[in-house]
C-alpha cells in the first residue's frame, strides 16, 4: 500500500470515532430510550415490560440493532489509536497492546449487549416479563460491571502519554484526563446493589456523568489529535523541523 493510500485509510478509520459517538447517541440513547435507562433494580418485571419494552417496542428494537452496528466502530478507532502509541524503536509496546485489547473488548461489548436488548424488545409481548427482566438485568450488569475493559484501555493510553515524554501526538493533559476518566468508572461496582440515587443504573454519576465524560471528554480530544496525526499535519511539521536542524 503506498503512503497516500495508507494515509487515507487512517483518516477514514479516525473518523470511525465520531461516527461511533453520533451513531450510538442516535440509536442507543435516543431510539433506545436510554436517557436515562429504566431503573431496572427498582422496577418489577411487569413495570419494565409495560413502561419500557412494551411501550417503545419498535423503536427500542431498531435502536438496539443500530447500536450493535455502531458499537463496533469503536474497535477500529481504538486499534488506530494503538498504532499511534509506538515505542521509540517503532514497535507496539505493552501499553499500546493493552489499549488495543481494551478497545477490542469494549467494541464487542457495545455490540453484544444491544443485541440482547433488541431481543428483549422483540420478545417483550411473547415471553414472560420475568424472563425479559432477567435478560435485561443480566445484560446491564455485563454492560456496566465489565467497565474494567475500558478502564484498562484508558489507563494504558494515559500512562503512555504521560510517561513517554518524546511522543508529540497527544498533549500531556489528554493522558491525565484519560487516567482520571478511567478511574471514575469504578463506582459502577455499586450499580447492581442500589435501587436509587447517583449510583443506580440511571443515576447521576453511574449514567449521566460517566457516559458523558467517556463520550465527550475522552473521545473528542483524543479523536481530534488522532485525526490531526492521521492527516499528517504534525508529521510534516516534525519533518520540516528535523530538516531545518
Amino acid at each position: 500500500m503506498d503512503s497516500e493510500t495508507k494515509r487515507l485509510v487512517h483518516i477514514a478509520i479516525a473518523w470511525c470515532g465520531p461516527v461511533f459517538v453520533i451513531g450510538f447517541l442516535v440509536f442507543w440513547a435516543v431510539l433506545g430510550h436510554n436517557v436515562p435507562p429504566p431503573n431496572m433494580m427498582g422496577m418489577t418485571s411487569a413495570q419494565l415490560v409495560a413502561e419500557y419494552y412494551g411501550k417503545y417496542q419498535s423503536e427500542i428494537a431498531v435502536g438496539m440493532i443500530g447500536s450493535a452496528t455502531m458499537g463496533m466502530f469503536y474497535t477500529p478507532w481504538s486499534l488506530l489509536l494503538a498504532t499511534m502509541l509506538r515505542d521509540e524503536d517503532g514497535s507496539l509496546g505493552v501499553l499500546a497492546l493493552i489499549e488495543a485489547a481494551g478497545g477490542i473488548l469494549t467494541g464487542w461489548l457495545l455490540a453484544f449487549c444491544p443485541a440482547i436488548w433488541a431481543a428483549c424488545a422483540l420478545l417483550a409481548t411473547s415471553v414472560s416479563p420475568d424472563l425479559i427482566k432477567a435478560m435485561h438485568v443480566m445484560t446491564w450488569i455485563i454492560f456496566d460491571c465489565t467497565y474494567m475493559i475500558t478502564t484498562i484501555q484508558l489507563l494504558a493510553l494515559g500512562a503512555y502519554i504521560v510517561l513517554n515524554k518524546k511522543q508529540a501526538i497527544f498533549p500531556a493533559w489528554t493522558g491525565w484526563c484519560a487516567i482520571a476518566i478511567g478511574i471514575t468508572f469504578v463506582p459502577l461496582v455499586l450499580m447492581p446493589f442500589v435501587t436509587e440515587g447517583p449510583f443506580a443504573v440511571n443515576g447521576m454519576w453511574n449514567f449521566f456523568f460517566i457516559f458523558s465524560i467517556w463520550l465527550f471528554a475522552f473521545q473528542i480530544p483524543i479523536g481530534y489529535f488522532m485525526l490531526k496525526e492521521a492527516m499528517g499535519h504534525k508529521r510534516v511539521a516534525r519533518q520540516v523541523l528535523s530538516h531545518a536542524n
Partner: protein
Amino acid sequence: MTTAVQSSRPPGTDGVWTFLFIDMIIFWMMFLSFMSERLRHVDLYAASQLRLNEFFGLANTLILLTSSWMVVEAVQAARRNEVRRVRRFLGLAWILGLAFAVDKFAEYYLKIRAGVTPAANSFYSFYFFITIVHFFHVIAGMFFIAYCRGNARLRVGSERYVTGLENVGLFWHFVDVLWIFIFPLLYLLGRR
C-alpha cells in the same frame, strides 16, 4: 561537596499541576453530585450523617495537617541537602499516613459491622465512594513518600530529587486539602 539547590521557580513540574487540576475537577464533580442529591433528600442525609462519628474525621484532619507539615519540612531540608532531616521528616509523614489508614479502617469496620454499607442509601454510597477514592490517594502518597525517603541518601543534592520531592509534596498537600473539604461536607454540614 554538593551545594544547596536553590528554588527560584514554582515548585514541582507542569505534569503534576495538570494532574492535580484534573483530579480537582473530578472531586468537584463528586461534591456537586453529593450536594445535588443532598438537596433532594435533606432529611435522609441529615439522619444518615448522625451515624458518622465526627471524631474519626477530626482525628484524620489533624493527622493529615501534621503530615503535610512534615513534608514541607522535608522539602526544605532537601533544598539544603540535609539528608538525615529529609529521611526523618518523610518517615514521620509516612507514619502519620499510616495512622490515617488505621483510623479509616477502624471507621469502616465499625460502620459495616453496624450494617452501614455503600448500598444502604445514597448518602452512604457517597460516603464510601468519596472517602475510599480519597483513601486510595493517601495510599499512593504514602508509596511516593516511601520512595523518596528510600532514595534520599543517594540523591539529595540533585535538582531532580528536589523537583521529584516537590511533586510528591504537592500531591500530599492536595490530598490534605481534599480532606479539609470532605470532612465538613460529609461529617459536619447541617449537623445539629
